[in-house]
C-alpha cells in the first residue's frame, strides 16, 4: 500500500522535480574550467553535483552525453521577443510608465526558437525610440508556461535608456504620420537634447522622491497628510534613484557614453549596462570605473553612421580593461546562435574558451544581477543547461537538449521526430477548414451588410 502511494506520488510529481544525471559529457563550467568526461546531477531544479565521478541517486533519469558538450544556459542581455503590441512607446521622450511586464506574450514562437538555440534566460528590453524608455524584465524561456511563470523570480527589473540617433530621430518630422497628417516633432532633435531630457526627468524624479519621502516621514510621525499623487512615470525613475531598478543604456559613440556617466554621477545613480556600446573600446577605462557592464555585438557594424567606428575587437578590448562584457542579440534570429557569436571573440581579441563562453553566460548573468542563480555550472545553481553535439563555440555545433530548472524544455530528437506529425495535423485542419469555407456561404463576416 505504502509503496503504491509512493509510486502515485512519483507519477504526480512535476517534471521539474525529476532527478537527472547527465553523463559522459565534456562539461564547460565557465567558472571552474572544463571537465573532460564528467557528470552533472540535477535534483529539484538545482545542480547538486558536478565532477568526473558523481553519486548517482537511485531512480535518476540518465542522459548519456557521450562525445557531447554541456554548457550553462545562454543568457541574452538584450532581446525584444515575447512581447505583445509593440516594444516601443515612442510617442514621448520619457515613457518610463510603460512596462514590458504588462505585455509578456508567453506564446511567442521566438521563445521556443531561442530555447532551441540554447538560450535559457533573456533580458526583455523596451525599444530605443526615446531617451528614457520603458521598464524591462528578465525572463526564463520556460516555453509552455504562462506569463508570470516566465518571469525570472527575484531578478531586479530594469529600465531602458537610449542615446544618439534613435531618440533624437523622432524629433524631426519626416514622412506622414497617422491620418495622413504631418507628424508633430518630438523633442529632442539633438544629442544635446537627449542629455537635457534625461537630466530634466531626473530633476523631476528627485522632487517627486523628496515629496514622497516627506510624506512618509510625516506618516511615520503619526500625521495624516494627503498622500502625493502616484505617478507611474516618475515612480520608475525614483526606483532608479533608490537603486531598485537597473539602467540599461542603448548607446554607440564614446562622447555620449561619457556624457551618460557624467549625468548618472551628477544625479546619483549607476548605469548597470551600456548596450551596443560599439565605441566602448575607446572609453573602456571610464566604463569600468563607473562599474557598468558592456553588452555589445560581436562584429555587427556600419548599419548607421554612429556605428561606423565599430570593431570586432570591442568585446575583448573592453574585457581587458576590466569591463564585464556580454554579447547580445537584439534580434530573434541572432538570438539562436549566440554560441558562435561568443566564439568570434577568440579570433578577434584572443579570448580563451572560458572567457568567450562567459560572454553569453556568466557575464550577462553578472550584468543582470542573477549570477548567484545562473551563468555557470556550479553546485547550488539553477539547472539551466545546454547539451551541444560538438564544441559549442563552433558554427557546426547543434543544440541537442536544453534544461531549465532541471526540466527538459527542448529536445532535438523529439522535435525532429514529431515534426512530420505536426505538419500533417496542421494540413489536415487547414483542409478541413477550407472544405467548410466551400460548403458554407459567407456569413457572419459580412456583418452589417450580410444577407444572402
Amino acid at each position: 500500500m505504502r509503496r503504491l502511494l509512493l509510486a502515485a506520488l512519483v507519477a504526480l510529481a512535476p517534471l521539474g522535480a525529476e532527478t537527472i544525471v547527465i553523463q559522459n559529457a565534456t562539461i564547460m563550467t565557465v567558472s571552474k574550467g572544463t571537465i573532460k568526461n564528467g557528470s552533472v546531477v540535477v535534483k529539484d531544479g538545482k545542480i547538486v553535483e558536478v565532477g568526473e565521478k558523481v553519486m548517482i541517486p537511485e531512480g535518476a533519469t540518465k542522459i548519456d552525453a557521450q562525445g557531447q558538450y554541456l554548457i550553462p544556459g545562454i543568457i541574452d542581455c538584450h532581446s525584444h521577443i515575447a512581447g505583445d503590441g509593440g516594444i516601443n512607446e515612442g510617442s514621448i521622450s520619457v515613457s518610463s510608465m510603460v512596462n514590458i511586464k504588462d505585455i509578456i506574450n508567453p506564446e511567442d514562437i521566438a521563445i521556443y526558437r531561442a530555447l532551441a538555440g540554447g538560450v535559457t534566460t533573456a533580458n526583455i528590453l523596451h525599444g530605443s525610440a526615446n531617451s528614457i524608455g520603458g521598464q524591462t524584465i528578465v525572463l526564463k524561456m520556460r516555453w509552455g508556461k504562462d506569463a508570470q511563470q516566465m518571469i525570472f523570480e527575484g531578478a531586479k527589473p530594469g529600465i531602458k535608456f537610449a542615446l544618439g540617433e534613435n531618440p533624437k530621430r523622432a524629433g524631426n518630422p519626416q514622412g506622414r504620420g497617422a491620418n495622413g497628417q504631418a507628424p508633430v516633432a518630438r523633442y529632442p532633435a539633438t544629442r544635446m537634447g537627449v542629455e537635457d531630457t534625461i537630466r530634466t526627468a531626473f530633476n523631476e524624479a528627485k522632487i517627486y522622491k523628496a515629496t514622497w519621502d516627506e510624506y512618509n516621514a510625516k506618516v511615520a510621525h503619526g500625521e495624516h497628510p494627503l498622500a502625493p499623487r502616484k505617478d507611474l512615470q516618475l515612480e520608475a525613475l525614483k526606483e532608479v534613484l533608490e537603486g531598485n531598478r537597473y539602467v540599461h543604456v542603448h548607446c554607440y559613440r564614446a562622447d555620449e557614453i561619457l556624457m551618460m556617466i557624467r549625468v548618472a554621477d551628477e544625479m546619483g545613480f549607476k548605469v548597470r549596462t551600456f548596450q551596443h556600446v560599439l565605441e566602448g573600446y575607446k572609453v573602456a577605462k571610464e566604463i569600468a570605473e563607473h562599474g557598468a557592464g558592456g553588452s555589445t555585438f560581436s562584429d555587427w557594424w556600419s548599419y548607421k553612421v554612429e556605428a561606423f567606428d565599430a570593431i570586432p575587437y570591442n568585446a575583448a578590448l573592453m574585457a581587458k580593461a576590466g569591463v564585464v562584457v556580454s554579447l547580445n542579440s537584439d534580434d530573434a534570429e541572432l538570438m539562436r546562435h549566440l554560441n558562435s557569436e561568443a566564439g568570434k571573440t577568440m579570433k578577434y581579441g584572443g579570448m580563451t574558451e572560458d572567457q568567450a563562453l562567459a560572454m553569453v553566460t556568466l557575464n550577462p548573468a553578472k550584468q543582470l544581477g542573477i549570477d548567484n542563480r545562473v551563468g555557470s555550472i556550479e553546485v547550488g545553481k539553477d539547472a539551466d543547461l545546454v547539451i551541444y553535439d560538438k564544441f559549442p563555440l563552433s558554427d557546426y555545433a547543434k543544440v541537442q537538449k536544453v534544461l531549465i530548472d532541471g526540466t527538459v524544455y527542448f529536445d532535438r530528437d523529439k522535435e525532429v521526430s514529431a515534426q512530420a506529425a505536426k505538419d500533417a495535423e496542421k494540413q489536415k485542419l487547414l483542409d478541413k477548414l477550407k472544405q467548410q469555407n466551400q460548403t458554407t456561404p459567407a456569413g457572419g463576416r459580412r456583418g452589417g451588410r450580410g444577407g444572402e
Partner: protein
Amino acid sequence: MKKLVTGLLLMVAYAFAAESSTVAIRNAKIVTVSGPVIAKGTVVVRNGLITAVGETVEIPADAFVVDGEGLTVYPGLIDAMSTLGFGGASTGGAAAAGGAGRGGRGGGAVTATPAAPAAAASTATRSMGPEDRPQTTSWEMAVDEISAADGRIPTVRASGVTTAVTFPTRGIFGGQGAIIDLITGEKAGEMIVTPAVGQYISIGRGGGFGGGGGGGGFPSSLMGYIAYVKQIYLDAEHYKMAKEAYEKDPHSMERPPYDRALEGVLASKRILLPANRAVEIDRVLRVAAELKQPTILYGGRETYRADAVDLLKKSGTPLLVSLRWPELPRGEIDPDNEPSMRSLEAIEKAPSAPGVLKKAGVRFALYSDGLEQPRDLQRAVKKAIDAGLSREDAIRAMTLSPAEIYGVSDRLGSIEKGKIGNLVVTRGEIFDDRTQVVWVIVDGRHYKPAETAAPAGRGAATEEPGGNQ
C-alpha cells in the same frame, strides 16, 4: 399634497396605458428561461409589463390577441454589447468611433462609416502623456447620445433582439453604456432601461496612432495603453481623496481642479475590458485586479482553452463572448503567409467556447459584435449550439445571463410576472435555420419583423480579435 401626487401619478399611468396596448399570446409554448417550459399557455403583457403567464390565464377584453398555436414564446433577446442607437455616420460626435476605424476582417466590409480613426479629432493637440487624458471621453453617457432613429434598430429587432447594452466605443475610455429597449420611438429617453451600466475601455492598439514617435501621441503601444489605464485609476483614487479632504475643510488647501475624465471614471460602477486570447485574459484579469474595479471581459475568442476558462473561473469575472467567430480567409492562401496552427485552432474551436464555459460554470453572455442581420446572428448562435452549447443555454446566454451580469435580472431576461414585456414569438425553435420570427414584443409594443434589411451601421463593438500578434 399627497393626493395631488397620487393624482399626477395616476395621470401618468393612464397616459402610458393609452399609448401601449395590451398583448396576449395564447396556446403557445412558453420558454420562460427562469422556470420550466410551459407546453401550452398564455402570456399577457400590459402597460409594458408581463402581467400574467401560465397554463390558464384570463385574457383581458382589450388585448391584442395572438393565437399561439404552433408558436413558441421566448424572453426578448439581449445583445450584451453593441453600438445600437449610435446611428451610423449621420449622428457625428461619438459615432465616429473606434469600431469603424479599427475595421476588421474582410477588408472593412463590416463598416459603413468611413474609416475615420478615433484619433482624428484629437491629433491637433498631441498627447504628451496620461495628464493629457488622451482618447478619453469617460464622462460621456450613451443615454445622452442615443438616437431613436438608428435605422439598424428594426433590422436587429427582426432577429428577436429586444434589448441592447449599447456603448460609446471611441478611444480608450469610451464612456458609459446604457441598456436600451429596441422600440421605434419618438424620444430616445423612452428606450432607456438603465442609464449607466459601466465604462467601456479598449486597450487594443486601435485609435489610429502610429507607434515609434511617428507623429502620434501617447499612448502608441499596448504597454502604453495599459500604463495609461493604470494611471487613470491611480489619479481617480487620488482625486477622490483630495476632493474629500477639500470638502472637509475648504480653508486648509487649494481646491483640486475639476477633472471630467476622472469624474467619468469614478461615476462608473463597473468596467468592461477586452480580452480574446488566453494570454490576454491572463493579462487583463491582472490589470483588472490592480484597478480594483468590478469587471466584465468582452471578446473571449480562446475561451475554448482550459487555461483561459480556469482563469475566468478562479477570478469569478463574467465574460461576454463575441459571436463573430473567426473564419479562414476566403480564396487562395498565400503559402508564405499561412495561418499559424494556433489561429487555425481558433477558427475550428472558437464556437465551442460557450459550451466549454457553460460546463465550467463561468458566467457568460453572448453578444452580436456587429452582426446585425438576423440571418447572421441566427447562424452564429447556431454554430455555438452545433459545437456543444445546449439550445437552452444558448437562449439563457442571450436573455437571463446578460441580465444577471448587468444586474437587471429583476426586470429583464425571463418570462415572469412583473418583468418588462419583452418577448419573441417564433414558428420553430429559436436559432434554427428555418425558424421564423413572427412577432417581437418590446415594452409591450408588438412589431412584425421587418422584411427588408436596413442600412448597415458602425459594425463591431470590439476590435479585430487577437489583433495584437
